[in-house]
């Protein structure tokens, strides 16, 4: 199945009679099953799923500590600045950092493949 080329469906459509026909669904299944698309999906999920779990656990830890570890959260670090405040600010830092990391990752590992598959599909439609 994975050997199906995405363009095969474009031949099925009759370009002379219908102006810019939507790509038939069969070709979407072919694209979805292609190794290239599977690679794109894997590249995306490899980043977003573990990262979602990570930031959610990190946030949950913060909320749980706020609820159940008040003594620890109240420890003063410098002057009146305590663990709770630093922990809260670290949530800001981690959010900014994850957003930045995702943008870099997507630029390098997702966008080029996505654009290539899109270009192939668009070219198939235009034929």
């Amino acid at each position, binding site marked *: 199945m994975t050997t199906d080329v995405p363009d095969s469906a474009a031949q099925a459509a009759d370009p002379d009679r219908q102006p810019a026909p939507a790509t038939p*669904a069969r070709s979407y299944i072919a694209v979805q099953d292609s190794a290239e698309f599977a690679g794109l999906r894997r590249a995306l999920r490899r980043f977003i799923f573990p990262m979602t779990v990570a930031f959610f656990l990190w946030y949950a830890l913060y909320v749980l500590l706020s*609820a159940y570890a008040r003594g620890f959260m109240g420890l003063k670090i410098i002057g009146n600045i305590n663990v709770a405040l630093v922990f809260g600010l670290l949530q800001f830092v981690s959010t900014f950092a994850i*957003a930045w990391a995702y943008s870099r990752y*997507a630029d390098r590992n997702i966008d080029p493949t996505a654009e290539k598959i899109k270009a192939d599909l668009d070219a198939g439609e235009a034929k």
Partner: protein
Amino acid sequence: MSDFLAAEASNSTARTLTITLFLVFVAITLGITVWASRQTKTATDFYAGGRSFSGFQNGMAIGGDYMSAASFLGIAGLIALYGYDGFLYSIGFLVAWLVALLLVAELLRNSGRYTMADVLAFRMRQRPVRTAAAVSTITVSIFYLLAQMVGAGALVALLLGIRPGTTFLGMDADTAKVATIILVGALMIIYVTVGGMKGTTYVQIVKAFLLMGGALLMTILVLAQYKFNLSSLLGDAAQQSGKGAAFLEPGLRYGVESASASATFYSKMDLLSLGIALVLGTAGLPHILIRFYTVPTAKTARKSVLWAIGIIGTFYLLTLALGFGAAALVGGAAIREQDAAGNTAAPQLAEALGVEFFGGDIGGATLLAIIAAVAFATILAVVAGLTLASSSSLAHDFYANVIKRGEASERQEVRVARIAAFAIGAVAITLSIFAQSLNVAFLVALAFAVAASGNLPTILYSLFWRRFNTSGALWATYSGIVSAVVLVFFSPVVSGSATSMFKTVDFSWFPLSNPGLISIPIGFLAGWLGTILSKENDREKFAELEVRALTGHGAH
């Protein structure tokens, strides 16, 4: 006596200035709206601003939609009165953006057109799923709208300094509240019906600049007062609050520890429940989701979320300084005297800073007026975004796809959207007038809980789960909405305690005031169960959805 007269004089100066500045904002935004209406020709213009906005513009507009009066006045007030616990809200509201960034924004932008339901119904039976999505969109938006409009009504008397027994333009405080709700409602209807998404987006951008500017100015003044020493600001805030070191630690407001073990247990559960709803609700808010359609590509959608995270994160850091600044410079007692919920902490801080830095009472009155006008601008922009989201869903999902089965023309659809905006506005005005006694923070938390329980499971399953189907979408959406609303109805928020809506009767059996901890898992479980109990599964449509979502092929 002369002090009193001076105070009255500066009060009246502030009032005149507030109204003048607010009218300037209204005039500018109405000008933009009329200009935008000339650029609005197609349905894409009306629903999605012609998809012509840049990442930065849309990022500012997302900030404008998201930083509501509840964030600005509410969180600053919570921090001023309860110290650290107000900060918990900000953190949940910010971290939530990672869900939107990583899991939702780009895929939604690629595969949808105008509304949330475009993605949810993509591979399902259109009419039932779009109906469910419209119900959910309108439920979330109405709760959120009520929160903002009731908040506007509650604030006007305070911001314009209408005290009990005094009048303004012949109106006492209660009449002024109703008049404000009607005025806010009328303006939001005009923004949406005339300017569509394009006009509304520019209003959000202008508002975001004003709000960030105001918050930044006040923060610099607060920090300057403490010679940029954060520790001494915190120390002063703790001392002035009368709570001491506990003011800087979690536990004064959420997860309160008391003598009763069960009360302590439920209070802590309530904190966890609030925390989970805040972090999962954002990516299910319809008025935020439709913002992703205003940019040309998924990559721009990503950039706009990155900008939004930067802007919103900075804003919440500023509210931290504002809240602790208000506690230190105004003091908890003076804030409570004005408003028991603390909503006036930021304006009061503005007045104190103006007196300190800009030459006495006139300076105080001026800064108060500026911040009060910014607060009104904030409310106005947020309600416009909400009205647009609900009217888009009514017109595009319910009218065009459910009633007309996809046969409506663009022109008809946009006309219905304008009528729907008018109707939603009228309903929101009426409900707000009757709901004036409702707690604003509760309404916002409920909107987040419904969005997290009803919308988020359906969105995530639609985008990532091959097997998901119509039955699963309906189960997830309806059980999420119903469980969140029902649990709140039977919670102490509605009956049985001194702070309830109905104080004299008690039909409460659910011990938490935030339903998320139970209703969000119910939404996800119901979506799973509904799916496996139905054989339906459109393999081809899922292939199309996934290919389009990940590559941007065929994106509108």
